[in-house]
């Protein structure tokens, strides 16, 4: 049975003067399936929308075309009008005759407006309703990691009422983080105590994720712990695996240091210096300390902060002479500029160099040689202790885990693609989040907001235990699907799985909750088996054919 299509024209109060609405209306009325054409001048307002609802009911319409301004801000509210009049909101198609027609061209655009309306009518004829349903979701969260980010996340999840599992590959939580405590300004030990006492948090140490299946609200994960395999279900997964540093002493850099110097603890990391500063039993206090940072890795927020804190502490505790070699001081975090001033006022000397200093062991001391930009001269500093450059790396297992979960890494190998729409903490897969240093951006303040963002996002998804979804908006036709796996491989959101429908053959099943309605699967399917309501092949082609008819 042919659909009864109603066309509502809005002339924007008479403002669209380059469209002859009477002529347009008359032409549109002749299109096959158009049951009525109504001109309303104020569709934006409540009054206009009521007229439209009344019109829908009176004519018993089953598809609606609105030719007016852009659907961008109107589609939503007009879809509501259809719902109120007893029609599914998806049975609306809008023709943009204002921003993309009347306002975009000089002179009379009636012909174009009619064509746009014809396109909309042709598409509307083929529209199908899409129903909604509440889907139950698993309310537990898997937090991978055992350091500050992971532990803080688990504690916040518990606070909002969500249970979580902390999955740590080492034997105890906080292995890497304990040393960093004071340096970052947090108390990991009491946080771990809190986690151990929290009944909402399960701790699995010496464990790794070995398989991960499913989608948001319904992940099935296998954890291998001390040879045993544990299967768990989670609603969301948070990766908070931190980062790894290495002293920049490798070949290719201008650091010619020998292992002796390192083993005699003359070349240290920031954490090691922090440890020394807090060691009441230290035998020799270094008289001259050199810091080098920011040459090999420009992501130097943490090195800058660590240098400033350590330098100020060393001045206070040991009254050492301190020379800092760097290219740029990274001050774009709260409070860092103040610390920088304080450090200089205390007598810490900053030498700005364009290239990495040459470092050598000389007579039992470390010699740092570089050309300071302001002095314009080569400067050599002989120091008792060198706090060397540290390079930031993703933790071991990052590539494997990203492969397991099928999520992208960034250009430096850290989690999360560098796509602005994912920031701060989302991955391209709904329900999988990346938090803290494992994203490659390291700074305590930002880590805290990361954690809140992830908790907030997951809370919104899982807390009530159900999520409302559109059912089968995108669906593979079991008759046509041959399970070639193309769509499964191509879906950027990991929303398609292999499944059996009604115990029959294996076909691609698009998981409604995980689907982001892009239609890439529909385009790539070799059998054209995927129906994407609102953007089906026949609906797109009908718009093209409508132009030809005009």
């Amino acid at each position, binding site marked *: 049975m042919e659909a009864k299509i109603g066309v509502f024209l809005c002339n*924007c*109060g*008479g*403002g*669209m003067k380059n469209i002859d609405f009477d002529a347009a209306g008359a032409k549109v009325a002749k299109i096959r399936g158009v049951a009525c054409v109504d001109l309303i*001048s*104020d569709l*934006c*307002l409540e009054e206009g929308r009521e007229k439209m609802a009344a019109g829908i009911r009176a004519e018993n319409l089953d598809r609606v075309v609105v030719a007016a301004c852009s659907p*961008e*801000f109107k589609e*939503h509210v007009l879809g509501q009008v259809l719902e109120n009049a007893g029609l599914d909101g998806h049975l609306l198609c809008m023709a943009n005759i204002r921003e993309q027609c009347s306002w975009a061209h000089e002179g009379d655009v009636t012909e174009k407006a009619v064509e746009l309306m014809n396109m909309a009518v042709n598409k509307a004829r083929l529209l199908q309703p899409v129903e909604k349903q509440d889907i139950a979701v698993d309310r537990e969260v898997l937090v991978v990691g055992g350091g500050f980010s992971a532990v803080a996340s688990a504690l*916040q999840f518990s*606070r*909002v*009422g969500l249970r979580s599992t902390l999955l740590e590959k080492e034997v105890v939580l906080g292995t890497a983080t304990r040393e960093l405590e004071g340096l970052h*300004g947090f108390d990991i030990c009491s946080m771990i105590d809190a986690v151990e006492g929290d009944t909402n948090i399960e701790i699995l140490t010496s464990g790794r994720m070995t398989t991960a299946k499913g989608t948001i609200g319904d992940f099935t994960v296998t954890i291998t712990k001390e040879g045993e395999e544990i299967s768990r279900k989670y609603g969301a997964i948070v990766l908070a695996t931190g980062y790894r540093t290495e002293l920049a002493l490798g070949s290719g850099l201008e650091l010619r240091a020998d292992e002796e110097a390192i083993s005699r603890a003359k070349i240290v990391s920031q954490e090691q210096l922090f440890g020394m500063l807090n060691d009441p039993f230290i035998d020799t206090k270094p008289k001259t300390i050199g810091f080098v940072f920011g040459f090999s890795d*420009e*992501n*130097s*927020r943490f090195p800058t902060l660590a240098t400033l804190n350590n330098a100020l502490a060393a001045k206070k505790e040991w009254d050492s002479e301190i020379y800092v070699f760097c*290219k*740029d*001081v*990274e*001050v*774009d975090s*709260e409070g860092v*500029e*103040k610390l920088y*001033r304080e450090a200089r006022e205390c007598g810490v000397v900053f030498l*700005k160099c364009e290239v990495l200093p040459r470092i050598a062991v000389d007579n039992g001391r470390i010699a740092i040689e570089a050309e300071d*930009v*302001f002095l*314009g001269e080569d400067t050599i500093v002989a120091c008792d202790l060198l706090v060397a450059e540290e390079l930031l790396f993703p933790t071991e297992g990052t590539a494997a885990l990203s492969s397991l979960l099928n999520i992208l890494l*960034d*250009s*430096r190998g*850290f989690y*999360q693609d*560098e*796509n*602005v729409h994912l*920031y*701060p*903490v989302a991955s391209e897969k709904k329900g999988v989040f990346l938090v803290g240093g494992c994203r*490659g*951006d390291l700074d*305590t*303040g*930002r880590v*805290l*907001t990361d954690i*809140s*963002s992830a*908790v*907030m*996002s997951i*809370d*919104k998804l899982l807390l009530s235990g159900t999520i409302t979804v559109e059912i089968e908006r995108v669906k593979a036709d079991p008759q046509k699907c041959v399970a070639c796996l193309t769509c499964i491989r191509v879906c950027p959101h990991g929303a398609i799985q292999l499944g059996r429908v009604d115990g029959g053959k294996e076909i691609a099943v698009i998981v409604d909750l995980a689907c982001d309605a892009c239609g890439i699967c529909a385009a790539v399917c070799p059998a054209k088996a995927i129906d994407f309501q609102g953007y089906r092949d026949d609906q797109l082609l009908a718009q093209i054919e409508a132009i030809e008819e005009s």
Partner: protein
Amino acid sequence: MDLENKCVLVVGSGISGIASALELGNAGLHVYLLEKEAAVGGHAASFCCKATDVCSGCSACVVRDKIKEAVLHPQVRLLTNSTIRELDGKLGDFRVEITQQPRYIDEERCIACGLCTEVCPTEPKAIYPPAAEATPFSYILDEGLCVRFKGEKCDLCQESCPTKAIQFEVKAKEQELSVGAIIVATGFDVFDAREKGSLGYGRYPNVVTGLDLERTFSREGYLRPTVSNKESQNIAFIQCIGSRDQGHGYCSHVCCKYAMKLAGLIKYQSPDTQVTIFYIDLQTAGKGFAQFHEEYKESIRFVRGVPVEVLQDASGELEVKFEDVCQGKVCRDTFDLVVLSVGISPRKDSWDLARILGINLADDGFFDIAEPLNSDETNVDGILLAGTCQGPRDIPDSIAHGIAAASKVIHILSEFASRRTGS
């Protein structure tokens, strides 16, 4: 914990306020999104896309997406042209007195048909469309140009309006809102480059700020050559204008990146243009930036040392006096356009809001936080901070901060509700 009927007030509809409002709305709370101006989105709404042949990560488009989401969100109620007059009460039970300034054009009824502009008798027109990206896209009546406000009688626009959206008899409207918590997200003031008189802003037309440049690109799409008979342009960016100086002991976070991205855009559109960036320390950290920095190093000339003087010569060209540290002497280079990378300053009206709400300002003029690592809580229970009103941040950080504040609000209101019911 049932938060379904809880209301929260978000003061300021910049990107942070919007991020907070969206999170709260998605969690089921009712949100009043208060905005002083007529349009939402704050400063970032007017930023331009800085993509070359790849996205440069400036996030201006993310702002547009979030504005659209907020405006369409069923739980978010927009109150534009509104400010807070008074506050009473405490966490769980704040009573906020709001004043809504008359706009003469009801933005819920204006359909942007343009008929009013056609009939307006003044030149330039006293009634006109807002900036293209303005949301709500509602026309503006300029009291300074309109003849009615000069004593003449005229109601041509009012008569022409098909939706009766124009009302002259409107007075300021007062309203009381009952909310459980408040998020202050009032944003920042752009540093007024006129304060650095020797740089010529406000005196020389070809000395502009980074924000001016963003708006030029938004409106025009490209940069018009300033000195017409030249083949290629010579442009200078001067960093740290209003940051890292006597009155502003902080880095504004955004300027190095926006300068480099704008420079990248300029070079992409006109490869012959020479761009120089004068800086103190180049801020290049952050996800996604390293890949661009290599390119920028190739195409942009970086000079360490911030100039102190810009002078315009007879031909309109700008002479910039700076210390070339590598040569160790004072130099003068000539440019066609000088862009001052102005920083993020605390809003001057923060004083008023601080007084009304009873929250503290920090030494640097931004709103103060109660504890070091809790960057969203103030000294008043139930009043939180989001975004640049607490300290400089870029767009992604402002969004994250807004989400964090919303997260905190939900936690605080839940705890408050539990304490009340004793559960």
